[in-house]
């Protein structure tokens, strides 16, 4: 049974179950000549039975979806003759991938017959196991919903049961956020710990050389690879600083103009235009930085008689700064508009000009909010990936010179993980160590920023 036929049958059955159960409740009510009728509307009895149909089916299907590939791989490996498994070059995972990629109808001439056999077996297995699961779940759901029919009685409050289930489902959906966070933390920690087994944590945090070239195959002669992350951290810091040097002045001045000088109509047009900057996909900025800004800066430098790297930190950081502008201007604008008018009026009353009022009253009052905006922007800049992947370099130079090429945490994560890799080499695991550093750093910045914003809001509202 394929997925679509399963879906059609499932729809039919669920309509039937709902209809049957609510009709049964109606008839039940009709049979009661005197005395109290059912405590809930018939449709709630229908919904109740429907829940007993759909929930088990849904649960099993979700479990099956996640475990199927895993389960099928085990069955497949069992099926492959063990002597072939040992003679195959490469690890069993690669063999499994090869078999999966082989089409038993259209294979390359010269493919090993064992692989073709296994591919056939695997294709069959996929279809058969799916149909078994579909039929099994449908039957199970039917059994459950049939039993639920027996609960229709005066003593059973169907509405309460249905609403309780609904609320529980809503809670379940809300906890996905927690599950995601836990998933992120655990997957990062787990892989990072494996990395720190191979490379001591202090070598990682304090080492000043980053060259993750380890041997790809065991018999290959290559250097061990050095995982000192300091050059990466300084590179990230440098690019973030450049981005902030662009974004803070422009963003802050724009915010001051928008909240203090601009007429409401102008503000309503300019603000969305600035926010377009945040809506442009980062890959577009990356393209712009690499194709236009990089060569442009290089030409300017040549004009002044010195040379800079075409993947300089300046190009990537500058373009990232443009992207960050709205993050600063939007939030700062909001906090400055939230400063009570009475404070400005007081300042005007003692004779201050508008700019003096802004500099000496509005900005100090809005300072916590502005700081929070800057922190959020910094966290955004640190975690930004595409611009630096496309416009910054990959070689880890320990330098603070903006004209040289540096690398960042995100660039290294991408470089280490893109392409086919074995998943137990220090090289790939290093990406997770960098990932967890990035995660906690941005988390820390965000938490502080959110806390400041919340505290500040309470002060004036």
């Amino acid at each position, binding site marked *: 049974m394929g997925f679509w036929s399963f879906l059609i049958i499932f729809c039919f059955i669920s309509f039937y179950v709902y209809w049957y159960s609510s009709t049964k409740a109606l008839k039940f009510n009709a049979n009661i000549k005197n005395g109290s009728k059912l405590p809930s509307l018939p449709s709630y009895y229908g919904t109740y039975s429907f829940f007993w149909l759909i929930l088990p089916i849904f649960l099993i299907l979700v479990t099956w979806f996640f475990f199927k590939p895993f389960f099928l791989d085990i069955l497949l490996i069992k099926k492959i003759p063990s002597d072939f498994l040992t003679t195959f070059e490469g690890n069993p995972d690669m063999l499994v991938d090869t078999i999966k990629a082989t089409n038993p109808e259209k294979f390359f001439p010269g493919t090993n017959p064992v692989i073709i056999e296994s591919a056939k077996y695997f294709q069959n297995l996929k279809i058969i196991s799916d149909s078994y699961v579909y039929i099994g779940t449908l039957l199970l759901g039917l059994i459950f919903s049939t039993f639920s029919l027996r609960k229709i009685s005066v003593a059973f409050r169907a509405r309460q049961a249905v609403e309780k289930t609904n609320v529980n489902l809503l809670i379940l959906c809300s906890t996905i*956020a927690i599950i995601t966070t836990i998933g992120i933390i655990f997957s990062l920690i787990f892989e990072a710990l494996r990395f720190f087994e191979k490379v001591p944590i202090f070598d990682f945090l304090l080492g000043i050389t980053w060259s993750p070239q380890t041997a790809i195959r065991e018999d290959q002669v290559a250097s061990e690879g050095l995982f000192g992350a300091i050059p990466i951290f300084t590179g990230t810091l440098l690019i973030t600083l450049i981005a902030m040097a662009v974004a803070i002045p422009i963003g802050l001045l724009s915010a001051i103009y928008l909240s203090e000088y601009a007429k409401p109509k102008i503000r309503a047009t300019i603000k969305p235009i600035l926010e377009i900057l945040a809506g442009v996909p980062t890959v577009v900025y990356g393209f712009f930085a690499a194709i236009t800004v990089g060569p442009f800066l290089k030409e300017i430098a040549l004009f002044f008689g010195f040379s800079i790297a075409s993947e300089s930190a300046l190009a990537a950081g500058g373009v990232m700064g443009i992207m960050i502008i709205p993050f600063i201007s939007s939030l700062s604008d909001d906090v400055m508009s939230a400063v009570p008018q009475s404070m400005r009026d007081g300042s005007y009353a003692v004779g201050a000009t508008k700019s003096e009022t802004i500099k000496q009253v509005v900005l100090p009052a809005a300072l916590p909010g502005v700081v929070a905006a800057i922190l959020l922007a910094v966290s955004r800049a640190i975690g930004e990936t*595409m611009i630096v992947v496309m416009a910054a370099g990959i070689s880890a130079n320990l330098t603070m010179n903006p004209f040289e090429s540096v690398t960042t945490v995100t660039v290294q994560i991408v470089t280490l993980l893109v392409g086919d890799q074995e998943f137990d080499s220090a090289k790939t695991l290093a990406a997770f160590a960098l990932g967890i550093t990035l995660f906690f750093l941005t988390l820390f910045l965000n938490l502080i920023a959110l806390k400041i914003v919340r505290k500040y809001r309470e002060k004036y509202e």
Partner: protein
Amino acid sequence: MNNTEIIKKSLMKRHLAESRFKTYGILGIISATVFLIVILSTIFIEGKSAFKSTYIKLDVFFDPSIIDPDGTRNIDEIRFANYRKVIKNSLKNYFPEVTGKEEMKSLTELISSSEEENLMQAVLKNNDLIGANKKVWLKASSKIDIIHKNPEMKDLSESNRLISDKELEWFDKLTRNGDVKFSLNKIFFLKADSTEPEQAGILGSILGSFFTLVITLILSFPIAVAAGVFLEELAPKNRLTDIIEININNLAAVPSIIFGLLGLAIFLNVMHLPRSAPIVGGMVLALMTLPTIIIATRVSLKAVPPSIREAAVGLGATKFQSVIHHVLPLAIPGIATGTIIGMSRALGESAPLLLIGMVAFIVDIPGSFTDSATVLPVQIYLWKSTAARGFVELTAAGVIVLLTFLILMNALAIFVRNKFEKKW
């Protein structure tokens, strides 16, 4: 000097400072706007040329001895015939002066190799072509296309020009005879990626994006709306809901690449889900989009006035009924707007997809959720990373396509908001 004069003097200074300060603000806004305009206009200037491409008119003789030597009109025979030779022969007729194997080879390279398949399709469709002579517009190769689009490159020295003096001579002869023209680059809209710039298209990645976004929407929309309804309307104020709320706010600010690491470690390595598949990409993007939709749901639920809830409860509805039957339907336009904006963000996102293998070079147009695919922004990244000169304009053209989709989605969001959202 009396006090009035001192004040007058300082007042002038202060007023100057005032207007200076205001000018700084205006300069800030102007520079931000200028950046935006520069970015968009460079991309449009760079990319618009990719929508047209160069075609060359040739007199093609569909030689029966090459296409169908037995005269049986056997389909397999026609399909696997050497169409390169057919093109070569017609070029030979056009340029009778060309001799020598090397020169002949570079002459044949004037025409894109995709035209072999086109000729084959034409013959398959119409068997009468065999043995006939026909004037056909054939797509030029990428380097000819670049020279045609940038005539100033002809003046460069041979080594800086992509094409040799000989090739330029042939191209000039074609131009003089009026056998070169620009035409809409259909391949760009109908094909997937390719190693040859003139044969690469965007359709594969558009469909990849489509499949990915469908999964994202199916997963994130119901879950996010459910979570938003619970947190805004039904949640008791307790420890659990506090934790959930902090979590959602933090997830909204986690760098997108972290979600890619999550997808790689859990979806691919633990669960063995297929690499490069839209289904995994969709799942990762769904986790990223959840906070956006949850926050939008909560904001629009908050905007529904309490009188609606009170009226429903007053008439005997339970709290749950009042929310589902009355409050939620009124909040739908706001939720829809937030969802569209979340989806447009997911469409432009590429970093997490790089990590779960959606950067593979994929020539086939994906047909399902489990086929290997790439998405629009990743395709742009891939083309940008390719060295061949012809890919630059393709990259920019890809950006134009991506931005067009984003503008459409945002316009839809604005339309939904203005048309359906109720102001209380």
